């Protein structure tokens, strides 16, 4: 029934098909290829995005553009992720990607590697990258579209706020945006029918640019504005499309008044098969490259090491037996069920101590640390165990508070979390502990 309803909806969505220039914009995915499945209403992801784009009509009329920041961190996993992301943009017929600071963090050599074989154009009007990387960056992009016999020319410019790049990379130079834009705007304004700026900058900075350059019809802005915001400033519309790929913007400048619409990628959109196979392939790569064994690890807090649930269970039997019945005990199996057990990013919250030395490594090496174990909340307990054996007091060991829970039950992975209610669901039984 539900499926039928979805299909029905999808048909309906495709009905008001405006035959006109449609610019689709997205950005600041920061590594969110897919929603994690931790919440009841997962938003975003490339698989839903693809079906939204498919509903908007074919290529040629659609101009999807990307604002910048495809991935969030600098690790091998994120390199693979970026490659996957760029491949997905290619399959969705994106025409360009504006450079964000996180794209630079990953390294110009990696950008060069990834964009070398991609038809996607890299855009930046103010980021200069040393030519030794063999990376082609266009200061502007012009696209021409046939619209009812007449040709429409659209010019795209893109900037990165210099305030956002904090490392002094010797091969990269950033020109102040208004300085870089002035000559380009002058050069393009009479050559195109529409000028659009991709402004990878704090919202306020983008608003400033809109008053300096009234020539832009649309400024797609961003940088950590999680939710879509629209402001009009003179003739210019300044819009953010939110972060983590949850929303997609659609701009149809020629017909509808305002011409702007933001879509939230919720479960009205099905997940496209092409993107699901790309995601499956991504998981396979994480597994083949054995990234779980390569995560960076900090020394655990204090001098203790992780012991394992069964060890705790030898003395705290009641707590252990009860814990076994909670979802925390089978959190690793949940990932096996959804085939993400080789994905370090998922594993981090579904096991005990992944990012610490002596914590979870793999199901073979550290089977006692699978799942959200005792020490995921109480901290590594080897010293406590030794002290308990000697009959010493458990000096301040194992304080666990709402803050502990929220390292995992954060807004992204458990938006309904509230300590009292959740703790009552899994509270340990009272017990007599023998030392």
């Amino acid at each position, binding site marked *: 029934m539900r499926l039928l309803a979805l299909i029905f909806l999808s048909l309906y*969505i495709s009905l008001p098909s405006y035959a006109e220039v449609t610019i689709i914009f997205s950005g600041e995915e920061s590594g969110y290829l897919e929603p994690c499945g931790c919440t009841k209403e997962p938003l975003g992801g490339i698989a839903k995005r693809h079906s939204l784009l498919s509903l908007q009509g074919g290529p040629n009329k659609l101009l999807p553009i990307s604002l910048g920041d495809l991935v969030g961190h600098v690790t091998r996993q994120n390199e693979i992720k970026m490659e996957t992301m760029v491949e997905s943009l290619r399959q969705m017929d994106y025409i360009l990607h504006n450079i964000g600071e996180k794209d630079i963090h990953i390294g110009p050599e990696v950008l060069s590697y990834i964009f070398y074989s991609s038809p996607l154009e890299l855009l930046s009007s103010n980021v200069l990258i040393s030519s030794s*990387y063999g990376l082609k960056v266009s200061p502007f992009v012009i696209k021409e579209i046939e619209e009812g016999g007449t040709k429409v020319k659209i010019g795209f410019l893109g900037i990165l706020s210099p305030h956002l790049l904090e490392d002094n990379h010797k091969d990269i130079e950033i020109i102040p945006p208004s300085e870089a834009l002035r000559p380009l705007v002058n050069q393009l304004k009479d050559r195109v029918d529409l000028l659009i700026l991709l402004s990878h900058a*704090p919202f306020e900075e983008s608003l400033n640019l809109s008053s300096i350059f009234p020539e832009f019809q649309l400024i797609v802005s961003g940088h950590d504005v999680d939710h879509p*915001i629209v*402001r009009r400033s003179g003739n210019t519309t300044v819009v953010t499309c939110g972060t983590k790929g949850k929303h997609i913007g659609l701009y149809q400048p020629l017909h509808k008044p305002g011409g702007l619409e933001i*879509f939230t990628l919720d479960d009205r959109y099905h997940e496209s098969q092409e993107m699901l196979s790309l995601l499956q392939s991504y998981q*396979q790569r994480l597994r*083949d490259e054995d990234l779980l064994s390569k995560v*960076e690890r900090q020394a655990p807090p204090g001098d203790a090491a992780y012991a394992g649930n069964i060890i705790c269970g030898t003395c705290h039997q009641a707590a252990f037996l009860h814990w076994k019945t909670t979802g925390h005990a089978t959190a690793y199996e949940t990932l096996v069920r959804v085939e993400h057990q080789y994905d370090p990013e998922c594993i981090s919250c579904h096991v005990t101590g992944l990012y610490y030395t002596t914590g979870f490594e793999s199901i073979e090496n550290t089977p006692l640390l699978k799942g959200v174990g005792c020490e995921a909340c109480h901290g590594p307990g080897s010293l406590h165990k030794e002290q308990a054996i000697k009959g010493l007091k458990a000096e301040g060991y194992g304080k666990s508070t709402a803050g502990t829970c929220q390292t995992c039950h954060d807004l992204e992975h458990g938006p309904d979390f509230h300590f009292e209610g959740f703790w009552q669901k899994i509270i340990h039984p009272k017990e007599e502990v023998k030392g």
Partner: protein
Amino acid sequence: MRKRTPVPTRLIPLLLGLAMGGVLFGGENTSKLPRLVFDETQHNFGEVYRGEKVSHKFILKNEGEGTLEVQGVRPSCGCTAAAPSKNNLAPGEQGDIEVTFQSDVFVGKVTKTIVVDTNDPETPHYTLTIEADVKEEVTANPRRLFLEQVRQGQSLKTEIEIKAVTDLDLEVTKINSSSPVLELEKRQRGNTHIIEVSIKKDAPLGRFGGDILVFTNSKRQPVLTIPFFGEIISDISIFPPTISYGTISKGSEAMRQVLITIYQEGVKLTRLEAMPEFLNLREATETGGRFHRLEVIITKDAPAGRLEGSLKIYSTSKAQPIINVPVYAVVK
């Protein structure tokens, strides 16, 4: 005054409703509708220290005739909490939504939103915006450490300065690095704490990265995270370190690139070898600079199943005469 945001999220149900002849709203009893009005839709906290908590009450009023139900308040990020004073407002009644903002992650000008879901049919999802200029009490310079390429065996030393901008008598209690490649030491110069970062002589070849954690006595910023990144190189560096294709469908060709960078002048590649037989190599046109590009292709006749192979790069380098790059794919 009745203010509305320009309703950014004009969602599909609305369109649908209209397309279907307004069944969604047309059927409702229009005589007793609630009407949500906010005094202001935007608040600027001004300068806020990172780690500091600030809050603001947005006043809302029900100017309609039916009961206004606040069904949900959804902040856009974990740094924002919001709670309504009441969930039901009778006609004419006033309430507030208290928004608390704590920035642990961001620095600089930030904009966050809170979506308020109500049963007001006109704006079921109302967006409030908060702004702040987040300053740091304790600053690190540089904020990210980019170590570039370092030759194996060479020692590289660099410094991070940690300073307090308030009159806090700053103490650095502990420093940690998530990578065994780095060695950290701290010392003090006046009010400035210096973290000396050096790369271990026996660090393995390859890209490395992670976070340096600096623990301080600042209540607002007990921990500073400084990401670092670099690469230990020898004569030749290969990217990526492993060639993985993921899953590919049987009967189709798949390509991955390899970037070979020669750092030692005079070093020449002598031979390239790929195993097993359905791996082909194609040297891409030279792109200039220090890079050579190589295309590694799985041919159409690769059999179904797991493929484990290798790419061997032979060169005149004394340090790296043969470099082995593992290759993985699953053909389905």
